[in-house]
């Protein structure tokens, strides 16, 4: 399929935005990431809540309550739907099911 390369077009603009935005917001990925990780221990559940807000709550409200028996299923569904990373998946699961 000669037109197959066009399928990769959507990657170009978001991909190009990564360094531009990172620079414009003064992000220093190398130096800041470890700092965030160093505070991860006491704020583990807080991270999960934040990641939930950033990923799941972008589209919908959190459910008011649900059985802990389905928390793993909820997260797996969200991992596929929202393309969560493994790390985000774990932290949200910990937040929902501490």
């Amino acid at each position, binding site marked *: 399929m000669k*037109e197959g390369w066009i399928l990769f077009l959507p990657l170009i603009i978001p991909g190009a935005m990564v360094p531009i935005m990172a620079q414009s917001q003064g992000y220093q990925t190398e130096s*800041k990431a470890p700092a965030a990780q160093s505070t991860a221990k006491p704020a583990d559940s807080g991270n999960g809540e934040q990641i939930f807000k950033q990923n799941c709550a972008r589209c919908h409200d959190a459910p008011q309550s649900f059985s802990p028996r389905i928390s793993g299923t909820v997260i797996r569904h969200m991992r596929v739907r929202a*393309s969560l990373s493994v790390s985000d998946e774990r932290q949200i699961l910990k937040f929902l*099911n501490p």
Partner: protein
Amino acid sequence: MLLCALSIVPAKQAAAQDTPLISGGVGFLTSTNGGSTTYLPIVTPLLAAPLGNHILIESRATIVDSFSPKGGGQTGYRSDLFLGLSYLQADFIASKHLTFVAGEFLTPFATYNERLSPIWIGNYGDGPLIAGIGTMGTASSVGGMLRGSLFSKPNVSLDYTAYFSAASTNQQFSADRSSGSRANVYFPKARLELGTSYGRLLQGAHESFEGAHVWWEPASTSLRIRSEYAHGPHSSGYWIEADYRLSRFHNGESFAGRFEPVLRMQQTFRTQPDAGDGLPSANTQRSDFGLDYRLPHEVRINSSYSREFSSTGNRNIWEAGIVYRFLFPAWRDK
């Protein structure tokens, strides 16, 4: 097939956190368009069942009965019942960067179809005018899809989706032969998401569709801004939606704190006639003023007034509805 899949879920999983779930929404919606009122009782159940550590079977159905005036001088209402699957897919989580999806899935173009179409999520009773661009007619595809997170850092994440759909004339799994892709980049600190989509119809006229979206939630506010642009061979358009949660100023449990004003602006452009793309036949501008109210126990009341301007005639659209969201295990604990 789904029942067979459920029957082989290991018993030990049922006792863990991986019990299959039933979720979705039940609603009663009304729409008064140009003086004609339509009533829509609707149920959209979703079933998600994990198999082992890497597979998820999920499906969403739609059951809706539309009661609308008979017209033509006749009194009374006619009823149109629709039962169908929105998707039935198997997800295989192959690695931390790749999930393979097979079956019938929602066509991944822009944001509305996959993320905002469930009745318990959308702020309005109806979708945006451009929802038909890029979703290949049925909004569902039959084939395979690759998706996942390319990388995720505290400052930025990038995810992707690419799919191929075969042509299917099966009544329950109808789809056009098509392919497409989408990529999103998200900046958590700015709460800004940018994305682009591409779709290609691989049968008939072999048409291309392009889309872009920007979502932004300004930090430390309850404001949420979503926008989407889509372009097809015969039409194009955009929508911008902003909602604001009064819970920020009032307790979320208070009377005032449960209100959520919503505003959506839409515009479509018609370049060539096409009855199949779902967009208005003439250039159209529309403003939707909504007010949602969140009751306890996952119940929400939606109401909106829309004013539409078009060369085919201006009109008012009033919508109201009540939606209940449910989420529970597929079976009781022993």
